[in-house]
């Protein structure tokens, strides 16, 4: 319990289950695309369910899961990004301003990908299929930026953010927001 005292609980059970289920679903969705339609479609529905639950949790969830906790003004976000460039940004316990907007971008990207996928008709290539592929590619870019951000922030603040998303805890620090 000595260790526990120095650690603070940040990501609640749903946030973690959501995050890693989404990772798994996302990989399966890409791997099954054009290969195994049934699996691809069911995984798509699953991701939409996850995104829907996350949006509700963003309104009523625990502190660091709530949108109101991690959505900062554009100005503050830009300030954060310029602090990043100068190399001394503030440490955030939950999502930092850039990470917060990435959460929103990913949720919207996944929603658009799922919704356009549901509209694809049987048979020939159609408009929705092109749109679906476009959104899927856009979301993939977001995922890579997200991974880059997580890696960069982990190195910058010398903390393992991937582990934190698994265990839910981070080391306690002074001056956290």
């Amino acid at each position, binding site marked *: 319990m000595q260790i526990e005292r120095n650690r603070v*609980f*940040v*990501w*609640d*059970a*749903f*946030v*973690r*289950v*959501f995050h890693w*289920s989404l990772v798994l679903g996302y990989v399966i969705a890409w791997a099954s695309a*054009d290969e195994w*339609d*049934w*699996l691809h479609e*069911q*995984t798509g*529905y*699953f991701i939409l*369910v*996850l995104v829907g*639950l996350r949006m*509700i*949790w963003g309104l*009523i*969830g*625990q*502190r*660091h899961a709530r949108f109101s906790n991690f959505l900062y003004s554009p100005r503050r976000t830009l300030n954060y990004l310029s602090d990043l460039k100068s190399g001394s940004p503030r440490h955030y316990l939950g999502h930092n301003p850039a990470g917060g907007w990435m959460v929103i971008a990913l949720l919207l990207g996944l929603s658009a990908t799922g919704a356009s996928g549901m509209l*694809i*008709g*049987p*048979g*020939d*290539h159609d408009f929705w299929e092109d749109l679906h592929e476009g959104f899927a590619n856009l979301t993939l870019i977001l995922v890579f930026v997200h991974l880059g951000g997580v890696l960069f922030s982990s190195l910058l603040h010398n903390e393992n953010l991937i582990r934190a998303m698994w265990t*839910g805890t981070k080391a306690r620090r002074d001056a956290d927001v």
Partner: protein
Amino acid sequence: MFETRTNRLSWLFAALAVGSAAMLFQGGVQVVAADDHDEARELRHAGNIVSLSELLGRPELLGQRVLEAELEREHGRLVYELELLDDAGRVHERVYDALTGQPLNGSGED
């Protein structure tokens, strides 16, 4: 309100996520468990689909080597997906409606 490990609502949401996965994927476990050949045979005996041998009798398929033939449900429609090797050694894919035996253009081709 601070996070707690034992927040009931958080676990309820987590359970909803896992439960939705169980509902969405249970059909697949059944499909994988059931033998594809059995389903194809049943459908054919019921007169619902054309048989693979009838399909391969189509003029444009004569003399082509079939590398792979699959009966699949695509967007709710039963289709045959054939992977063919032509005389020039090229591999290409053709999709047929399993109910009518008519070719479907485009879909399934990469």
